[in-house]
């Protein structure tokens, strides 16, 4: 140690080191670092897996009552493969009875006026199933009815073929590094994930700071520490130590997620297009690759393209800035109470500015270059979340990013100074519940 001990920085670092090691070595840390990505993965993957599975398994037996006299056959062909038409032309009463006792899943009634548009078709069942099922049924019927109407209008077969041909829309993001095909959907997903991650991280580690302060105050160690270091050093040490815990955990999580996604690429491919795996090199039937917005096997490289080094650096920078801004406030609130349950009301004014930007996330995503979006991505209470979202969604000029960072730094320096004044009075205050007005008085008199 070349540093003189009276240099306050060395005490801050000593405190930060102790705070860091105490937490990183705990079982809780290991468990949350390992389990959180698994949990996140489960939250994303399970619904997809369920949807795929139930979609494949549930075979449905249906009947068609066709009063137009020529739609039953085409409809049977147009329905999803899980639907089997087992009866045509049976009386409605008996079909209804069979649906009720479960021998039939449902029946279509296609009235005479369906083709000229004077009557609507109906599907009777005890429950259609999910939105996907409804959409599939509607699409099948619409295709069949349209084809018949066009044929009735005298259109040649060629027109029908043209109408049936796929008209996909490829979304291409243009950037200086080159065009990224199919990237728009993925990049807004990345924007969401990064924005929410910063939000969650600032909240988690901010509350961790608050808990640490309350714990020190509740078990009275704070008086011993205060006779060894300045309250400001103690607060900064804690804030920096826990910030380092947060970074460590984020790095751990990213490493695990990367490992998962490398492993998950082939896995997803297997799940969504078995043909692709069983016969590599074979060209896929048209439309088969339309289920995912990207080629599963290219997931790692896609992530690599979406998470550019600049975006990652900004993510870390804005996370740290947002964390420093809010955690010092959490420290101030923690210092004013003796147990966590008392912190609720005081916490509210901190929670609000953390939560509010999340509500703006969709509008920033849809219009990342609007005046509001630019303002929100510069304003220090919302920039940690929304600037990262903007950067993931669009090309943000470098000067705006730097300006947002500079404003954020100025904001957290001021906020730390303010919080330190509350903290210094609060940590020694026992027996009386402090109100927001008390905190403000401490700020002014300290």
């Amino acid at each position: 140690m070349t540093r003189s001990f009276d240099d306050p920085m060395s005490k801050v670092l000593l405190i930060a080191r102790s705070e860091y090691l105490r937490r990183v070595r705990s079982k809780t840390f290991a468990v949350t670092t390992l389990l959180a990505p698994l949990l996140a993965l489960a939250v994303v993957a399970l619904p997809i897996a369920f949807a795929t599975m139930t979609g494949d398994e549930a075979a449905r037996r249906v009947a068609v009552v066709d009063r137009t006299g020529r739609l039953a056959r085409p409809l049977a062909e147009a329905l999803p493969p899980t639907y089997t038409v087992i009866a045509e032309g049976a009386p409605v009463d008996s079909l209804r009875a069979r649906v009720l006792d479960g021998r039939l899943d449902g029946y279509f009634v296609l009235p005479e006026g369906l083709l000229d548009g004077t009557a609507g078709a109906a599907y009777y069942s005890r429950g259609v199933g999910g939105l996907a099922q409804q959409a599939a049924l509607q699409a099948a019927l619409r295709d069949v009815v349209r084809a018949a109407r066009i044929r009735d209008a005298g259109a040649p077969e060629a027109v029908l073929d043209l109408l049936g041909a796929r008209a996909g829309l490829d979304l291409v993001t243009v950037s200086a590094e080159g065009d990224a095909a199919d990237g728009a959907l993925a990049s807004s997903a990345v924007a969401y994930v990064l924005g929410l991650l910063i939000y969650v991280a600032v909240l988690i580690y901010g509350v961790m700071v608050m808990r640490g302060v309350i714990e020190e105050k509740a078990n009275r160690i704070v008086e011993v520490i205060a006779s060894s270091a300045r309250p400001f050093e103690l607060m900064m040490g804690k804030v920096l130590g826990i910030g380092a815990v947060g970074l460590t955990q984020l790095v751990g999580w990213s490493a695990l997620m990367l490992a998962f996604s490398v492993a998950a690429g082939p896995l997803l491919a297997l799940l969504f297009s078995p043909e692709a795996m069983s016969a590599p090199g074979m060209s896929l039937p048209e439309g088969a690759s339309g289920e995912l917005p990207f080629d599963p096997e290219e997931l790692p490289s896609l992530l690599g393209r979406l998470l550019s080094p600049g975006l990652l650096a900004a993510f870390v920078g804005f996370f740290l800035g947002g964390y420093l801004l809010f955690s010092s406030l959490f420290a101030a609130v923690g210092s004013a109470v003796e147990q966590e349950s008392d912190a609720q009301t005081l916490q509210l004014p901190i929670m609000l500015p953390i939560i509010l930007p999340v509500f703006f996330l969709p509008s920033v995503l849809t219009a990342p270059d609007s005046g509001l979006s630019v303002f929100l991505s510069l304003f220090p209470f919302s920039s940690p979340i929304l600037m990262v979202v903007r950067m993931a969604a669009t090309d943000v000029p470098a000067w705006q990013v730097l300006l947002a960072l500079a404003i954020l730094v100025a904001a957290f320096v001021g906020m730390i100074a303010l919080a330190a004044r509350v903290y210094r009075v609060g940590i020694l205050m026992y027996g009386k519940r402090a109100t927001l007005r008390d905190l403000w008085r401490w700020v002014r008199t300290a």
Partner: protein
Amino acid sequence: MPLLEVEHVTKRYGQGRTAVVAVDDVSFRAEPGRIFGLLGPNGAGKTSTIRMIAYITTPDAGRITLGGRPVGPATQRLMGYLPEERGLYRKLRVGEQLVYLARLKGRSASEAEAAARRWLDRFDALGWWSKRVEELSKGMQQKVQFIATVAHDPALVILDEPFTGLDPLNTDLLREVIAELRAAGRTVLFASHRMEQVEQVCDDLCLIAEGRVVLSGALREVKRRFGRDTVTLAFDGGDGWLDALAAGGAVEVLSRTAGHVTARLADGTPPRRVLEAALAGAREVVHFELHEPPLDEIFRIAVSGDRAAGPSDHRAGGGPGGALPPGQAPRSSGGPIVR
């Protein structure tokens, strides 16, 4: 030369009409190689005073110096503080905790570890090194906290009610260690409201009540100032004779159990009058002693005298009501009185 000097220190909490004066123009000095007792009932301002010495808070008026330097971040390294409300990191292991706290006081990692091991060994507790604090009993935690107070070898050791919660064996052990600190030339500031403990341990004392110094000086001298006006008797038989004496105003009974009594003589009551009454009234007198009043009695007298005389002149004469002997002037003499 005193290590610690507290000069005309005042501390207020709150502001405006609700302001409370916790410490009011307090002055005293504590010297190396001696144990200084800071006494007073709960809420007298002891902890407020100590916090200013430890530079946890700062005085509104007055000056505190440690080793000739005004207290500040630098002097925090020279002192160790055992607060009345004990506290340690519950999840942290004992060794790591002691090393961390000593390093916060400016010791290097290796110095801190060596000192922590030495002190744990002194308390027969080396085996606790890698135990978490929460696994220890309350008494054990208290020892760990005491070690945390002294492990960085501070010149000033501040102990706020150090004996609370200790069993008799550990009380003796701690008393021994405090004596060692004194012998090693450390200044010990011992804060307590338990007068009998102070009487057993301290060399010098300062009595404060309601934030003000009511009495200060070397223990022996303080007691001498009050004179030998208290008698203790041990006897067999009834104690009805005592009631007659007390009713007549000749004595004031301080403590009374079967066959044992301590009483303070009123002005003009010769000691022999009590003895004669006892000889006449009791079956047998087995012990008779004339001595200075016990410290808690001195404290009671000093505080009531202070109240009776008012804040501006609270040490008027040695009369029955005013109680403080002449020459006792802790405040208006302009400086602290130590010996």
